[in-house]
């Protein structure tokens, strides 16, 4: 190898040492895999979705296996924003990685309150989850209409100067319209996709496997859908797009970036192989070296559509 390729990226003024971010909900608050490798090996972490008050989540079972994927219905179980700020954030800050708070709420005032609290901290970025399919009130209901998505974005934009990433749901008719609506309200970035609503049934008991009956599909099964949506959104907005949904290998991550993602997130694949994010980084370096490309950012959006 004649040169060491550069896999670092800059998104919304933040420097990521590599483009791989742990997806919200799959990696907790970054404390659970440190026996295997330090959190600083990741470009960043999007923490578990955090609400104003602590939430206990849905009744289990909360997970079901599907062909090449999983369904989950955690229901945003989290310790609440105060515990995030007072307990987890100081610990995360000691790790050399970009820390993204992922926030959710039932009503706009919740989003505002959480964003205001986070604005006073040293968290790097805020990811607005307007797309969680697993809570009855809020979450996805904001993300499925342009007006809903715009109003939450507008409110949070006023509440914080931190870079705001709006996380989009794929459970909509036209995702580019939603992306444009949040861009117009001052979102600094959009991330996609959240999970696709799905269902599995145990044919012997005739009961859904998830106690919540339905849940969000993630993992390699959703990858082509995610690539398509990232490509469409990247072509519709000027702000950077963070791509996720089923990424398991370096090839997947590279494909997602060629579709238009400036960085990627990985969730479900980590359950199968905890080292997957590390392998993705290694694979990216190898690909760049082979292709004689200096920087990973040079491949972003370089798909050549027919």
């Amino acid at each position, binding site marked *: 190898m004649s040169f060491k390729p550069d896999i670092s990226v800059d998104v919304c003024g933040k420097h990521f040492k590599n483009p791989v971010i742990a997806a919200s909900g799959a990696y907790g608050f970054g404390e659970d895999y440190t026996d295997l490798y330090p959190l600083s090996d990741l470009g960043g972490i999007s923490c578990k979705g955090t609400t104003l008050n602590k939430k206990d989540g849905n009744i289990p079972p909360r997970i079901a*296996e599907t062909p090449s994927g999983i369904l989950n219905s955690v229901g945003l179980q989290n310790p609440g924003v105060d515990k995030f700020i007072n307990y987890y954030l100081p610990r995360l800050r000691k790790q050399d990685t970009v820390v993204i708070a992922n926030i959710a709420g039932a009503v706009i005032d919740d989003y505002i309150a959480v964003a205001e609290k986070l604005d006073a901290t040293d968290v790097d970025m805020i990811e607005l989850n307007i797309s969680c399919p697993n809570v009855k009130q809020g979450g996805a209901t904001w993300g499925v209409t342009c007006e809903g998505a715009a109003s939450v974005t507008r409110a949070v934009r006023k509440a914080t100067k931190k870079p705001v990433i709006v996380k989009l749901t794929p459970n909509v008719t036209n995702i580019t319209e939603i992306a444009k609506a949040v861009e117009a309200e001052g979102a600094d970035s959009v991330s996609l996709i959240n999970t696709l609503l799905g269902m599995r049934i145990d044919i012997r008991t005739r009961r859904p496997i998830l106690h919540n009956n339905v849940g969000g599909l993630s993992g390699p099964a959703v990858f082509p859908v995610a690539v398509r949506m990232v490509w469409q959104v990247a072509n519709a907005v000027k702000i950077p797009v963070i791509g996720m949904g089923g990424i398991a290998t370096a090839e997947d991550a590279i494909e997602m970036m060629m579709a238009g993602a400036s960085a990627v997130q990985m969730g479900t694949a980590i359950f199968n192989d905890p080292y997957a994010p590390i392998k993705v980084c290694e694979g990216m370096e190898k690909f760049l070296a082979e292709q004689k490309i200096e920087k990973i950012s040079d491949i972003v959006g370089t798909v050549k559509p027919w």
Partner: protein
Amino acid sequence: MSFFCNSYPIVDKKALGEGIYSYTLKCPEVAENANIGQFVQIKAEGYMLRRPISICSVDKGNGTMRLVFEVRGKGTDKISELNKGDLMDVIAPLGNGFTVPAKKDGRVIVVGGGIGTPPLLDIAKLYGDKCTAILGFRSFDKIILDKDYAKTGANVIVCTDDGSTGVHGTVAQPLADELAKGDVAAVYACGPTPMLKAVVAAAKQAGVYSEVSLEQRMGCGVGACVVCACTVIRDGEEKVVRVCKDGPVFSGEEVVL
């Protein structure tokens, strides 16, 4: 406490009965760090989710770990295709095991139901003749590990639901009898939820400390995804905790079954 994610060679494979397998892995780093009652997450080639399986027994001297599981569905079926000499990909050891030896002096009772019998074997090893092992199975042909338990020196009581061998009926009566004899420091149990409920209730009534190992569907297995929720009562308050990281073993006093 630390865990590893690695592929380890299978040094022994045995069929214990219809669709029940015993695997022994050479995994010194895991054996060194494992506690009784912890579990592993086994990769099933071609499936997204790893399968949680309890550690049956550990030989720290030889650096080996034994796992015993029943083929229930597609993933365990896939894993059971592995043979001696192959590698098994596991994350291990995970979770909190049993509190052993018990905090009090005295003898202990282990209660295992069906495929819940494996994780208690090393407690019997530790206590020898100061352990009574009450093992419940559906029928004669479902019995596993009774000889392994007998080898530990424990007093073994086998029960079958259909009375085809041993005590006819559930583990409830033998457990009540054993508790009545007194001098019991702790009861440890693993098996179906109705059995665990009965064990916890009987232990409470006798004023004896108990611990149970729970099952729940898992994602990560290491505490990150909170899909494996269960409820405990701590300081008078209901608390949702993770079976994988806060358990799988919980005290009978706190667990909500």
